[in-house]
């Protein structure tokens, strides 16, 4: 029998990881909901952001959390430019073309990182890296707690942007009625690129929250992109809260699965969920559009 407090701690860990997953997945889900494209490069963009955080810390001594104001606009601009000038022109009408272009982008980014930074796994050390916080019966590393809370805040901010701002309204209008939005004077290409920029920026937030308790390597995006896809599919492609709850669920499943089945097989649980949902409930558990 496993000690209940270990289970509780494991679930809490999973929740913290899941909140970050949710944030990464929200970016992917937003892009899917608005642009109806599956962005394979999402994980690679997260990887680049993680390197950004890493080098800001190593070279300039900037605290990972304080790197956010630097990285956010950079990531946003990069996302905007990528969509407007690379993905949109190449994608054209066919679903599969966008898939191929973002796959190509992922190949380029990931392997550029491999050439530039080698395949070493890098971590950073901060004063608080090993501080623990007691939450009830469980101990949680401080960076994990920050990641949990920070992701929740970022999720709410993201939700507010999508729901309450003119920008969000324009994006949602384009998502729903492309032609009508064009007729009322919304620049759809601009709106699409903005949605992509927001998606990329949320990965940058995730990167800042993640690095103190995680690592970076050229392939780090792989795991994330598959998990994020699982979450997006689980929550219903394009559904905001679906992605959020899906993220938390996957985080907990992964953590508990790892506890009971071992790290490797725990991951299989995620893919089993992924395949099962795609097959039996392709609209997801909370399948409602954005």
């Amino acid at each position, binding site marked *: 029998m496993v000690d209940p407090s270990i289970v509780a701690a494991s679930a809490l860990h999973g929740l913290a990881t899941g909140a970050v997953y949710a944030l990464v997945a929200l970016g992917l889900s937003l892009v899917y909901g608005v642009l109806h494209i599956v962005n394979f490069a999402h994980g690679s963009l997260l990887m680049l952001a993680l390197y950004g955080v890493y080098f800001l810390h190593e070279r300039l001594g900037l605290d990972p959390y304080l790197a956010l104001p630097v990285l956010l606009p950079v990531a946003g601009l990069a996302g905007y430019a990528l969509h407007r000038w690379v993905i949109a022109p190449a994608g054209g009408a066919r679903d599969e073309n966008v898939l191929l272009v973002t796959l190509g982008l992922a190949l*380029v980014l990931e392997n550029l990182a491999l050439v530039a930074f080698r*395949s070493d796994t890098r971590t950073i050390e901060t004063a608080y890296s090993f501080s623990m916080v007691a939450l009830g019966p469980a101990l949680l590393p401080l960076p994990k707690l920050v990641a949990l809370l920070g992701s929740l805040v970022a999720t709410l901010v993201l939700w507010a942007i999508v729901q309450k701002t003119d920008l969000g309204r324009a994006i949602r209008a384009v998502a729903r009625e492309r032609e009508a939005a064009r007729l009322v004077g919304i620049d759809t290409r601009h709106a699409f690129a903005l949605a992509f920029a927001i998606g990329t920026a949320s990965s940058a937030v995730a990167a800042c929250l993640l690095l103190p308790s995680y690592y970076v390597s050229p392939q780090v995006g792989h795991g994330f992109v598959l998990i994020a896809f699982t979450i997006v599919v689980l929550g219903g492609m394009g559904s905001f809260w679906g992605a959020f709850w899906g993220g938390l669920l996957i985080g907990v499943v992964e953590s508990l699965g790892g506890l009971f089945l071992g790290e490797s097989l725990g991951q299989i649980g995620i893919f089993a969920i992924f395949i099962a949902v795609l097959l039996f409930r392709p609209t997801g558990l909370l399948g409602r559009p954005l």
Partner: protein
Amino acid sequence: MNPAQGERAALVFLVLAAPLPWLVDSGTLVHFGIMVFQAATLGQAWNILGGMGGQFSFGHAAFFGAGAYTTAILQLRFGVDAWSGFFAAILAGAVVALVIGLASFRFGLRGSYFALVTLAFAEVLRILANTLEITGAGVGLLLPLAPGLERLQFADRRGYYLLALFLCAASLLVARAVAGSRLGARLVAVRENEEAASALGVDPFAVKMRAILLSGAMAASVGAFYVQYFLYLDPHIAFGPQVSVEALLGPIVGGPGTVAGPLAGAFLLQLLGEASRALAGGATGANLVVYGIVLILIVRFLPGGLAGLARARAERAGAGS
């Protein structure tokens, strides 16, 4: 150049390439040839399902890896001979294809969804191979070196060259037979418009199943060849995403849905890969950077691949005369 001319050109190319290692004494050339034929065969496998049938798989590593592990495990753990292992591998590829095909096509998964499901299947297999004892887990499997035709191993690398060339030619002939058959016509119809095809009496499920079975078996044969050539296998080599990427890259670049496209694409990509590796001082990943750029450029400017370019030139020439 029209498609039929392209097919002939590809076959002539293979015939001319066969004696090359005996005319030019170069280990580099032999290895390069093997890599091209291997990639072209894997690409042809993808092409039948993705190019002709329009079902874009992002997980052909599942078939490749299933073939590779099947023959490796049979030889190492059960003392089966390499030839039987080779045919068992092809069968294993078809079995995995049966599972993936039944799972996804029964439920009508298309487009991005199908791509994601195939990717997930390949990942599941990778994790399993990484965990199970029979696959040697993360350590992988090492086959003993024992050259001999009956063991499908060659002391002279040119033996592998001929074997790879044979596989490539066989895949080309299979693809040509498919393209010229009723199945081929129906596959293309399903790619172009599934509903219209079914209204005309085409059963899309049956057609896609046939394509994936053929494709899976073909990709598995490449996996089995890989094992014979390198005598080593691990979960990343077998089921890693780079295999799936390699499978789709060649046909996309060469001309998806054309018989000659995968070979042309594989040749160009291997050439570019070698060149970029040389330029980057042998840094790992340099070739993949170039592949990624080529992929984006092709999709953007040349959606029909090299074959599309050749066809457009032929049409212009035809219009001019």
